[in-house]
């Protein structure tokens, strides 16, 4: 037997009570894990963006189109090494599954996004096949698409010249991301702008929704952003330029303050948990006053006894917390599988770290008062039942 063994043995003194309390802790941390990972999906979507790129959109909204003819003016700006552009295609797979799909210039895009990994011959094929489409690994795996297949994709917005919204493309390449973060983003598809310009019913040509500016190393992003916007101010194509990171953040912000909602819910959950576990710990110590007194008679110091109680609280919350977080991990993985990677609910290192911090803080919160009580008790009074 050891001190740890003693602490654990005391924890299971009243088995039903401990197990029920443990289950409450597990539920709380299960929720914590799930909500925090939802939150981090929404809020950290920007952090992984490494190279500085600027996103240029129409000032009013990215749903408004800008002319591709702006490209030479943008490339002429000092500090801008290359410009690519993206137009929203509104692709739909099989009636009602929306796809993240854009029309673009393959070579320009290739230059501006080195983070995608695809064999050169596939890039070549994409450049030279008018009806070609390249898709990210996630999409290909999810729908079982293979290179060489003809993929029927319809558009929510754009009909073909024959009036039908059904389009079809030849799959010529599948790309991966350079690391885990970029791999998460391989759920996109790209087609040729030229083909689109030619084939769409409205005769919409040379329009796009975003320009992406690749900056030279050391270039000042803020200065260049201001330069771009100043260049097109008071024109019919007013722009708003920001870093790619800021763009991602502002998009999520429009959905609402997810972080705030999550915080409120977790506050309610942990407040309640504090009461539940705190009550259990308080009861448990109250029942054991004579035993704690005996420990002191045996020679354990006041500090030791405080330590035993805190350790017990910590063991309880740690066990429940780890199980809860693990369950959240499993649940998240299941959600990912079910929605075919559409809904990423992974508990990353950040969430686990936060979870551990929460465990430590909660153990202190529920354990400190009973522990102080244990430290304070006077042997003689306790033994006499006072």
């Amino acid at each position, binding site marked *: 037997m050891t001190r740890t063994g003693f602490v654990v043995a005391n924890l299971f003194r009243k088995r*039903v*009570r401990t197990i*029920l*309390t443990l*289950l*409450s802790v597990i*539920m*709380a941390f*299960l*929720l914590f894990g*799930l*909500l925090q990972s939802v939150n981090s999906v929404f809020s950290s979507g920007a952090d992984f963006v490494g190279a500085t790129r600027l996103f240029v959109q129409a*000032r*009013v*909204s990215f*749903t*408004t189109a800008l002319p591709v003819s702006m490209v030479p003016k943008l490339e002429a700006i000092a500090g801008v090494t290359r410009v690519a552009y993206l137009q929203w295609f*509104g692709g739909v797979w099989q009636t009602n599954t929306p796809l993240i799909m854009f029309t673009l210039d393959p070579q320009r895009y290739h230059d501006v996004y080195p983070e995608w990994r695809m064999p050169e011959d596939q890039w070549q094929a994409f450049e030279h096949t008018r009806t070609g489409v390249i898709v990210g690994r996630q999409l290909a795996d999810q729908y079982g698409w293979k290179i060489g297949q003809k993929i029927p994709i319809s558009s*929510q*917005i754009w009909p073909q010249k024959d*009036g039908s*919204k059904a389009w079809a493309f030849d799959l010529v390449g599948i790309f991966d991301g350079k690391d885990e973060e970029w791999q998460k983003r391989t759920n996109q598809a790209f087609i040729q702008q030229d083909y689109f310009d030619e084939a769409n019913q409205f005769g919409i040509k040379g329009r796009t929704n975003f320009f992406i500016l690749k900056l030279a190393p050391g270039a000042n992003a803020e200065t260049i952003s201001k330069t771009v916007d100043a260049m097109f*101010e*008071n*024109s*019919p*194509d*007013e722009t*708003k330029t920001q870093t790619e990171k800021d763009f991602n*953040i*502002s998009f999520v*912000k*429009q*959905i*609402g303050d997810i972080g705030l909602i999550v915080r*409120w*819910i977790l506050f*309610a*959950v942990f*407040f*309640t*948990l504090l*009461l*539940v576990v705190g*009550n*259990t710990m*308080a*009861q448990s110590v109250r029942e054991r006053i004579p035993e704690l007194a005996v420990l002191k008679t045996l020679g354990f110091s006041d500090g030791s006894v405080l330590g035993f109680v805190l350790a017990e609280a910590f063991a309880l919350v740690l066990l429940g917390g780890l199980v809860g977080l693990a369950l959240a991990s499993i649940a998240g993985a299941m959600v990912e599988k079910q929605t075919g990677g559409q809904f990423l609910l992974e508990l990353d290192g950040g969430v686990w770290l936060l979870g551990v911090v929460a465990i430590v803080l909660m153990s202190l919160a529920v354990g400190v008062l009973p522990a102080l009580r244990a430290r304070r008790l006077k042997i003689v009074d306790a033994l006499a039942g006072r």
Partner: protein
Amino acid sequence: MLRQAFAITGLSVRSIPERWAPSLVIVIGLAGVVAVFTALLAMSAGFESTLKSTGRHDAAIILRGGSDAELNSGFDRDSTDLIKEKPGIRPGADGKPLAAAELMVIAELVRRDDVRSGANVTLRGVEPASFMLRPQLKIVAGRNFTPGLRELIVGRGVLQQFQGADVGQTVRMRGSEWTVVGEFASGDSHDSEMWADINVARSTFGRLGSSSVLAALDEPGGFDRLKAAIAADPRLSMDVLREDDYFSGQTKQFRQTIGVLAGVVTVIMGLGAVFAALNSMYAAVAARGKEIATLRAIGFGGLPVVVSVMIEALLLALAGAVLGALIAYLLFNNLSVATLGQNFTQVVFSFKVTPQLVVRGLVIAVLIGMIGGFLPALRAARVPVTTSLRES
């Protein structure tokens, strides 16, 4: 039996103050579950009620075929004129069909609470008929815009959530300046919009046609006639919906998302509450062990004891539920928020803590209370009398 049960319940309830700590656990635990549940669904209810109250059953909205939101819809002037001539549309006071072409455009405004990021707001280009089709919309400050000029009237929800669009201010869009001349209120999702003259909007935003046509229906039968006529016309490929159905459909995704969130959170919190309630009720039964045993030794049956324990659990759970609903109501009811709608623009709505929601919260509490009280109640009734008397 009932009398016995109530007698025991009376005794046990009176002793609750002695066991205030575990009892409080149940109350607070349930309050938490019900508060979170109510708040989340109040968001959904508010969103739904804002959009549901938008749109009338006797008006139809016509969009380009296959677009499921005004944002994706767009058709030319010729089509617009064709639609207006179709049968089924009620004539207005001037004898002409009461229908308005409308153009949906996206503008950007800065939020009041977060100056750094802008958010997209709907700018609706309208015709005079648009006002007649929406009698609930009233100008509450300033005046209506003058046709032909770059003037805007702004919905009440926009003023609540965004800055830079107060009456008298100027909004810059597409290199041109627009003056806000009035504020309107319509009690539905239009409060999240800015309105302007459709022709000025067209020329400013480089658009030639419309996003939608809104038409008053000549009921009965007008809807079917209109729909059939449009379907029969080879020059038109349109979707025809009743206006209220259209807006209802717009809420689907949001309601689904919130529904899932609320469901998951409530189930998990509810389970946590069940475990906490079980814990507390076991403790309560243990604390009253001697008392219960004595009662049974005297001659009270097992069933009244079970009933009394369950009633105690239920009362505590209900107390918690009422507390939770009250907290949700006080903190959240009528709180104004905005989120992304189907058109990628902001929809402003308020939390709505409805009586229906409160009842659902109470039902959940009853459920949790019953589960939390059942097993301990059984235990109370079954432990041999002599054991209980001796143990204490």
